[in-house]
């Protein structure tokens, strides 16, 4: 399967350790994050992360499911760039 850039949009609770957990799920599988943006939303207790990763559709599908399993992750969507 071909690799593509996937853009993950994650809404997460604004708590310490959340970024590390999310980044760890991706880097722990040997994938490089190409771009990472983290910032607050209008609701100060929620942060938005935008992560671009080069990976196959299957890997991204699995990463998304595992991200959604995380205790502090509110929502994840993705789009192939």
């Amino acid at each position: 399967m071909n690799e593509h850039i996937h853009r993950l949009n994650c809404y997460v609770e604004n708590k310490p350790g959340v970024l590390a957990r999310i980044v760890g799920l991706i880097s722990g599988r040997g994938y490089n994050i190409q771009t990472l943006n983290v910032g607050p939303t209008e609701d100060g207790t929620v942060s938005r992360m935008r992560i671009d990763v080069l990976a196959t559709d299957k890997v991204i599908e699995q990463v998304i499911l595992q991200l959604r399993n995380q205790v502090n992750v509110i929502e994840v969507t993705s789009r192939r760039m």
Partner: protein
Amino acid sequence: MRPMKKNEMRTGAKALVESLEKAGTEVLFGYPGGQALDIFNCLPEAKFQFVLGRHEQGCAHMADGYARATGRPGVCLVTSGPGATNTITGLATANVDGIPMVVITGQVPLSLIGTDAFQEADMTGIARAVSKHCFLVQSADEIPETVAEAFYIATHGKPGPVVIDIPKNCQQGLTAAQYPERVSLRAYHPESTATTTQMNRLAKLINEARRPVLYAGGGVISAGAAKDVAALAHRAQIPVATTLMGLGSFDERDPLALGLAGMHGSAAANWAIRDADLILAFGVRFSDRVTAKISEYAKKANLVHVDCDPASLNKNVPADLGIVADVKDVLTTVLSRVKSAEHKEWLARIDGWRKERPMAYKPMHKEVIMPQSVMESIDRATDGKALLVTDVGQHQMWAAQYFRHNLPRHFLSSGGMGTMGFGIPAAIGAQFAKPNATVVAICGDGGAQMTFEEVVVAVEHKLPVTFVVINNECLGMVRQWQELFYSKRYSGSILSAKGRLANEHIEDDLKYDYLPDFCRLAEAHGAKAYRVIDPAKLDATIAKAVKSNETCVVEVVVEPRANVYPMIPGGRSVSEMVFD
């Protein structure tokens, strides 16, 4: 939070102990150290029992064994730095097998974090990859709520271990915070139920199947759904295969039982899955040890995968019908819609495979005990009622193959992580949880040496655990792979002085050919020790040990060249099973 009253103020450490009581803790396994002293200082007044292990890895596996035997979270308390890092293997073991645990670690005061303080380790950073969730407490006020959340997370969705790292200043700080009555997490809502469409389709698939197989995993046991699997199997006469983690979820003495599936599973289980037209997989994750060559796996079947973990579905094997829901709910709901069936032809075919390729072994030398016979001996001595706890390696597979598993939570084994050293402490944890159970730990001589120090815990608490050490004087599973796939170069796998490669040669003027002497080691730990070499004495010795009320270590000297068969070599399909 209710407004503070002065008389409700107590230290964070005291609040932690109170919270653990409220969470239902019965036994706390742990080991003290500098950054956990404030908590330890509160333990004498606690309503739960404290059990002092001898190594933090042992404490973690004890908590794990407690959880596997009961389904309730095992709780463990250790200090910072090396105390915390020693629990990592225990966390990883519980995490991959979905075992609920709460591990509390001391931490240096917040003001010292990041300064390379004495016994400082970034525990939440290290534990993140091997736990379900980690908390780093920031103030004493957070402690009661954090404990409640940790127990909630450990037991909801796919269970798993949760770490609470508590800096010393938070243990010492005063708080009036109370244990919450309800836990509500903003982002974590793992409960999910099957849709009507899914249930209709499931019932239709079952009713139309001609060659169905039920395939039950650890998720059936953690959902408490063993009886529901049996009900469905009996209603529609569906044969049942289990994973290693699923052993005990279906009575192997039942005519519908296929036994263990996978790399060392029975021919009947593997070939039934190969030729099935419907696989009903409940609470499994299709590990690579089970599927063998993925492209060949269950090619003829409609595959139904039911699991509480959405990330398990379509991970390794694509499902024709994937249902994220509680396994027990799905089984009970579908049962009323399933018509009774006989599947006579299919069951006859499976019976043919059972007769053609039964689980069997041949003695290699008349005067030497075959390791498989030890499992049969334990089965006889306990009438199949033993709560078996295994270590990892050949003996683990033989225990899976040659014991008639028939009760859930009676086969505790490190399935996913394959952690050597798990057996001894996990058996101790299980016996604390089930004081009346006949707990038998089965270890190899390799794994037994990794955590043998914990035997003293069994002895000092007068636990009647029987630790069986299957001694083949080598790391049997490693040796087997080297024999089969590495040109018989036994590098690093031979524990006796004899038989080592030249680069590992040791002078042969040693007093002993094999060290340690397990009987003297056991006696030094205060346990009753037996050594069996003669096959004729095996049954009597095992029976004596399991029936006694003492902690016993039984060293069984076995045939060193015995291999685990059948076997599907890595990357091959189930049709290429090797039988000897």
